[in-house]
C-alpha cells in the first residue's frame, strides 16, 4: 500500500500558532497518510527537530519584498513542492490566503485545497480574506471554547464550513508527572510555580506588563518560569530571579505549574484551559485579526480563568493576588473540567484523510 501525504502550508512570520495547529492535526493523521509542512514561520527548525518534514520560505515581511514579487515566488515554491512531495491534499492554515497560494491552487485544480482558519476575528476585520474561500474546496474551522462570544466575520459563514472542536497539540494523557516536568525545567516541585507566557515577544512590547507580573509574583514567593520563544527577536526585560526556559512544545510539562499568566492567543488559551491550568489571561490587543479580548472576557465570565487588561497595573496586581490563592486556583481548575474535550485535531485529521483519493480513510 502506498503512503499518501497531506501538505500543510502555514503562515506565521513571527508566531507559532498556525504551525503548531498544523502539527497537531498532522500527527493525528492515520498511519497510511504522511505529513509535510511548508511554513513561513521562523520556528521551522523547532518542528524539524521533532522529526517532522518541514520546508521553509522567508515570509514577505522578513524578505521585505513587494507583494507581487513575493507572491510569485511563493506560488513557484508551492508548485515545486507539489512536484517534490506529490501530496494528495493541501491544507493552508492562516487567516489570509496569499495571492501566490490562490494562483498555485488554480494551477493544480486536480488537488483538494483546504483552508483551515480559526474563528474569533476582531469585529469588522477580514472581510476580504473571507472572499478568498472560493478558491478552496473546503474550509475547516478549528473550534473555540469561547465561540458564543465570537464577534467576527466568520460567524456568518459557520454553515458553509467544516467545524471541529478546539484543536490542541497535547492531550491530557500526554502530560508528564510534576516531578518529571519540574526536573526537565530545572525547578523545584515543592514550591508555587507560575508560568508567565505573554506572547512570542514580537507582536507587542510586553516588557512593561511582564515586568509588573513578574515583580508581583516574586513578591509572593512564587517561582516564575518565563519561556523564551526561540523565534523572539527581543527579550522582555525581567527582574532577577525569573527562571527562563526554552522548550517546544511546552504543554506536556504543564503539571510543573500551579498557575499561569498568559496572553489569550488560540493555542495557549485552549491548551491551558483544556489541561486545567489555573490561568490569568492578559489579552494582547495589538494582533491584526485575533480577538484575544473577547476570548479572555468570555473565560472570565464563564469562571474558567481570570482576566485583566494589559495596561492596567492595579488590575493586574489584584488579579495576581487572586491567582496566588490556592482556593481560587482549585476553583478554576475544577471549572475547566466542565469544558468540552478539545478533540478537534483528531476530527480535522480524519476530515483531511477522507479527502485522499481512493478512499483510504
Amino acid at each position: 500500500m502506498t503512503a499518501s501525504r497531506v501538505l500543510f502550508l502555514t503562515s506565521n512570520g513571527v508566531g507559532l500558532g498556525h504551525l503548531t495547529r498544523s502539527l497537531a492535526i498532522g500527527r493525528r493523521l492515520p498511519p497510511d497518510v504522511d505529513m509535510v509542512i511548508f511554513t513561513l514561520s521562523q520556528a521551522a527548525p523547532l518542528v524539524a527537530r521533532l522529526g517532522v518534514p518541514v520546508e521553509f520560505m522567508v515570509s514577505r515581511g522578513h524578505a521585505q519584498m513587494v507583494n507581487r514579487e513575493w507572491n510569485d515566488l511563493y506560488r513557484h515554491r508551492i508548485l515545486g513542492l507539489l512536484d517534490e512531495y506529490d501530496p494528495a491534499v493541501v491544507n493552508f492554515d492562516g487567516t489570509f490566503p496569499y495571492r501566490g497560494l490562490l494562483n498555485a491552487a488554480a494551477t493544480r485544480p486536480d488537488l483538494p485545497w483546504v483552508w483551515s482558519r480559526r474563528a474569533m476575528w476582531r469585529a469588522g476585520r477580514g472581510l476580504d480574506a473571507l472572499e478568498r474561500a472560493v478558491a478552496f474546496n473546503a474550509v475547516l474551522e478549528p473550534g473555540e471554547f469561547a465561540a458564543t462570544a465570537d464577534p467576527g466575520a466568520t460567524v456568518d459563514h459557520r454553515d458553509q464550513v467544516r467545524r471541529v472542536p478546539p484543536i490542541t497539540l497535547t492531550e491530557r494523557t500526554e502530560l508528564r508527572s510534576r516531578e518529571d516536568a519540574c526536573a526537565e525545567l530545572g525547578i523545584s516541585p515543592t514550591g508555587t510555580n507560575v508560568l508567565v507566557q505573554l506572547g512570542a515577544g514580537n507582536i507587542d512590547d510586553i516588557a512593561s506588563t511582564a515586568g509588573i507580573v513578574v515583580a508581583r509574583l516574586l513578591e509572593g514567593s512564587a517561582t516564575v518560569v518565563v519561556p523564551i520563544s526561540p523565534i523572539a527577536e527581543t527579550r522582555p526585560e525581567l527582574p532577577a530571579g525569573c527562571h527562563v526556559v526554552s522548550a517546544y512544545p511546552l504543554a506536556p510539562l504543564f503539571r510543573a505549574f500551579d498557575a499561569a499568566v498568559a496572553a489569550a492567543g488560540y493555542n495557549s488559551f485552549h491548551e491551558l484551559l483544556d489541561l486545567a491550568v489555573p490561568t490569568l489571561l492578559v489579552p494582547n490587543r495589538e494582533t491584526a485579526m485575533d480577538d484575544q479580548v473577547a476570548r479572555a472576557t468570555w473565560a472570565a465570565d464563564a469562571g474558567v480563568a481570570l482576566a485583566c487588561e494589559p495596561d492596567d497595573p492595579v488590575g493586574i496586581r489584584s488579579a495576581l493576588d487572586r491567582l496566588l490563592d490556592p482556593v481560587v486556583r482549585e476553583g478554576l481548575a475544577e471549572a475547566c473540567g466542565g469544558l468540552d474535550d478539545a478533540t478537534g485535531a483528531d476530527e480535522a485529521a480524519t476530515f483531511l484523510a477522507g479527502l485522499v483519493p481512493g478512499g483510504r480513510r
Partner: protein
Amino acid sequence: MSQLPPPPGPAQPAPPHAPPNARPDPSVDMRGALTALRREREWRDRMTALPSVRLAVRASRDTRRARRLALRVVRRAVKTLPEDRVAVVRQRLDDALDRPDPEPLADPRPPAARRRLAGVPSVDGDQAVDVVFLLLVADPTDDDLDALLTAVRRVQRDQGDIGIVVVTDSEAFHLFRRHGMLFEHLPPRARWEGREDDRRRGGWDRMLGRRLALLTDAWQPDAVLVMDPRPSGRDLALANLAATMREHVPTT
C-alpha cells in the same frame, strides 16, 4: 523534548515505499555539476594551499544573456562617440535586438536581473540590482555562516546593486535576520536522509539538484556560487568571494 511522538493510540506501522515518481527528474542536469563539485572538494583537500571558494560559477548561455552581454559591450563602446550620435546608435541597437519593451537609454541595467529583487531594498536604498547571485553554502557552522554573511554584506555595501540570495541548509535563521539577508532554505542532509522521500527519490544530492534547478528557475541568477564553509581556508574564501562577485558586476 527532542521528539514528539504520535498521540496515544494504536501502533503505527512504517509507511511502505511509494512507487518511483514518473515525472521527469530535473536533477539530471545538475548531477554532473554536483559530481564535479565533490571531486573538486576531495582534490582540494589535498591541496590545502588553494583557496576554498568558488567551486563553480555557472554562467547562463541562453539567448537573453547573450543579448544583454552584447548590449553592455556596445554601450560601453558608444560612450566614446559624440553625444549626438549616442542616442542614434542605441536606438538602432535596440531595434536590431528587437527589444519589445526598451529600457530608458540612460539605464544600463539589464531588465532580467532586476526581476526578483526589484522589491528588495538594497543596502543603498536602491530598489533595483544589476546582478543576482545564488550563494550555496551547505552545512556551515554558525560561526562560518556568520562570517560569510558579514562578508557578503560588505561586498554588497562596496559594490551596490548586487542581489544575493543565500541557499543553505543551516537552521541558524537568526543570523539571516541579524544581517538582513535573504535566504532560501534546504532540508539539512541529516534530516533528509532516512526519510521515505530520500529512499524514493535518490538521496540528498539529487534533492539538492532538483532544488537548485527550482531556485535557479525562480531567481534566474547571473551566477550560482558554491561556497565551501569549512574553516581551513575561510578567510581566503571570503576574499575570493568578493573578487568573484566583482567579475560579474558590469562596469558601465
